[in-house]
């Protein structure tokens, strides 16, 4: 390839870091633009779910190594910076930044968008009482609490019965999210196993639509959870209410489809397994770069799941579709490959 082509990577989460590192290792001049004051994105809130030191392969610790590599790499990092305006320039891009120390626009032959996702806001699922009932929390909150307070965060809360509710805001065409968020089954089962390992007396039930138990790294977790006595029920509640007997508990009615019966049950803690949705600024970013969004608001791509309608603009990670951290990293490396090939052809 001729000289050192310039690439701008937008977003410093797991996908952005991976794409930036790969291209930099291959001789491109890479500038990584991150709006936050720290790198890592959503990956920063994922906690370690190892049970007594045995890794559950959740990927919670994946970020650290990449952060170490990026600071010792030639990738130019611009934190607290966002893209303000984009112009086409001689087949490439002229990107004007906001908040950067640099006042002049960046010139680049290609752009990789890795702007990530937002967690589904559990408030939008009104009947589940999130924000009103003290015993209703979300998977994201649980991850955060364990990350901040340690694995014992839920040990001394006097819990007896815990419910996980799957597919909160996912696989629901009525709310414009007719897709599987990919990660919720995995994090819910791993969190459930972690809680169960620390408090064996805890009764844990996972209410599911379909457990996504494919994938090599997850089969083991799935089998272990069942052996450890974690109950799985096919059926989701419609409404979660305050228990009339014990106001701090939550109660709900569900239809256990496989058992063919309708049951009412109380729980001390209800964890809503919230999924992923496009970032709230996805529309603006799409407009800035002249790319399309799919019917759910993620960036629209061709059959390769990487290229957009604008030559030279590629997407990586969860801004294209929900993915786990490992899958987002792999997708980003594919984006880097597509981008590199594009630069190579440009140079000919």
């Amino acid at each position, binding site marked *: 390839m001729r000289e050192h082509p310039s690439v701008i990577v937008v977003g410093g989460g797991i996908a952005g870091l991976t794409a930036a590192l*790969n291209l930099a*290792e*291959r*001789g491109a001049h890479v500038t990584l633009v991150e709006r936050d004051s720290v790198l890592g994105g959503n990956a920063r809130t994922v906690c370690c779910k190892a049970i007594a030191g045995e*890794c559950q*392969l959740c*990927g919670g*610790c*994946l970020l650290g*190594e*990449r952060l170490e590599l990026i600071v010792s790499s030639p990738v130019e990092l611009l934190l607290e910076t966002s893209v303000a305006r984009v112009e086409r320039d001689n087949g490439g891009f002229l990107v004007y930044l906001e908040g950067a120390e640099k006042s002049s626009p960046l010139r680049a032959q290609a752009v990789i968008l890795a702007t990530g996702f937002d967690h589904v806001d559990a408030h939008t699922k009104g009947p589940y009482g999130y924000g009103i009932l003290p015993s209703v929390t979300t998977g994201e909150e649980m991850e955060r609490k364990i990350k901040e307070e340690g694995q014992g965060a839920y040990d001394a809360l006097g819990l007896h019965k815990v419910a996980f509710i799957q597919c909160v805001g996912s*696989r629901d*065409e009525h709310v414009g999210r*007719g*897709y*599987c968020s*990919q990660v919720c*089954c995995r994090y819910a089962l791993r969190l459930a196993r972690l809680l169960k390992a620390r408090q064996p007396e805890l009764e844990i039930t996972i209410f*599911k639509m*379909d*457990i*996504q*138990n*494919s*994938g*090599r*790294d997850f*089969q*083991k977790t799935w089998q272990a959870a069942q052996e450890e006595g974690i109950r799985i029920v*096919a059926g989701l509640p419609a409404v979660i209410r305050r228990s009339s007997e014990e106001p701090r508990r939550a109660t709900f009615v569900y239809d256990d*489809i*496989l058992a*063919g019966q309708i049951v009412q049950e109380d729980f001390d803690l209800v964890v809503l397994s919230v999924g992923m949705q496009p970032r709230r600024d996805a529309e603006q970013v799409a407009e800035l770069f002249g790319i399309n969004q799919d019917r759910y608001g993620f960036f629209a791509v061709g059959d*390769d*799941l990487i290229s957009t309608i604008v030559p030279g603009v590629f997407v990586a990670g969860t801004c*294209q*579709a*929900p*993915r786990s951290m*490992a899958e987002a*990293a*792999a*997708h980003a*490396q*594919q984006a*880097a*490959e*597509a981008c*590199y*090939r594009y630069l*190579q052809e440009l140079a000919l």
Partner: protein
Amino acid sequence: MSQATPVAKQVLVLGASSEAARAVKELLALGYKVLWVSGDELPSNGLDSPALAKYANCRLYALEGHVGRFVSHFLHQGQRLALSTSAIIVATGNERYFPAERYGLELSSLVWTTSQVKEQLKKPLPQSVLAFRDKRILLLLDWSGETSKELVSESFSLAGELCERCRSEVYFFYRDLTVDSPGWEQRTRELRDKGVVFCRYGEPEVTVGEAAVSISYLEGTVEGDLLVLPEAVRPRGDTAELAEILQVRLGEDGYFQELNIRKYRAGLSARKGIFFAGRCHMDCDASEAESDALQVVAAVDALLGQGALEPEEVIAYVDPSKCIRCLTCVRTCPHAAVQVVEYEDMDVVAARVDELACWGCGACASNCPVQAIEMVGQEMPAWVQGV
């Protein structure tokens, strides 16, 4: 201490899978010289280039050297063949079989596998379509207790094709509907729109009669003309042998195991310069396997693209005069980077760490019973050297 070692942009791709073909194509586009070798026939898909050498029906029997200068030894048509490459991509795929025991059913005119249906649909018109025209077809997933994304994906495709091309009435039975790949939920919606009926079962009761099959489940009994069962996938029979020759790890499930089991650097084996792509190391369908091949090629090019290799910043160094040749380091090195060799200039036989293959993990140094191994920085800062 050490300098960059020049390496050839030359890669060995092992396997005849579609992901292997994708890796070969991508490497050629990046200007690599590619040696494509398989134990089976190679697909004839128009991949031809002066930079590509193909060897079908070869058996790998030994591997020498390390990253940057691997020499792979094959038996090829009764001849010995030695190929030198800087890196190796293993893309041997998986193996299909029909788990008859777990199903407890024999294949018959009423019980087909997904592959049989696929083959029939590939036949010329009208036989391809007439076999299923206006028939009620019961596709039963998950029943063997195994879910593989490859078979689920194929079952989705078959259900759609049977509906559209053959006007079949398709019932799709499942325990847990697998949709955890981008776009799969959308695929199931489109199938529903085409008329596929999705049925969730708990414990289904399957009956194969004289002229019809039936499945009893939660909501009743469905009778059909044909029962279609997915096959299952497993590691190829030669995976363990290949792992031993390549000195890479296998997972508990018998597939190749990455360096980082958390898959942070997807596709990297424990040995530097050896990569895994596609279905030989992960559960995915054919198109995901090909995407995986692309990201593995990106990793290969990040390693070799500059035409030179440098050691890690910290690597292990054996003092040959202290080594007692106990082989502890050879056994403990997770990356197969240590060998016992003859140091000609010193006239001793002792362990030696290949400096390019070493990840600098320190396993050998901490296990050496006579402290003959030290972890050394590649370049000491000037002030250290001056002291």
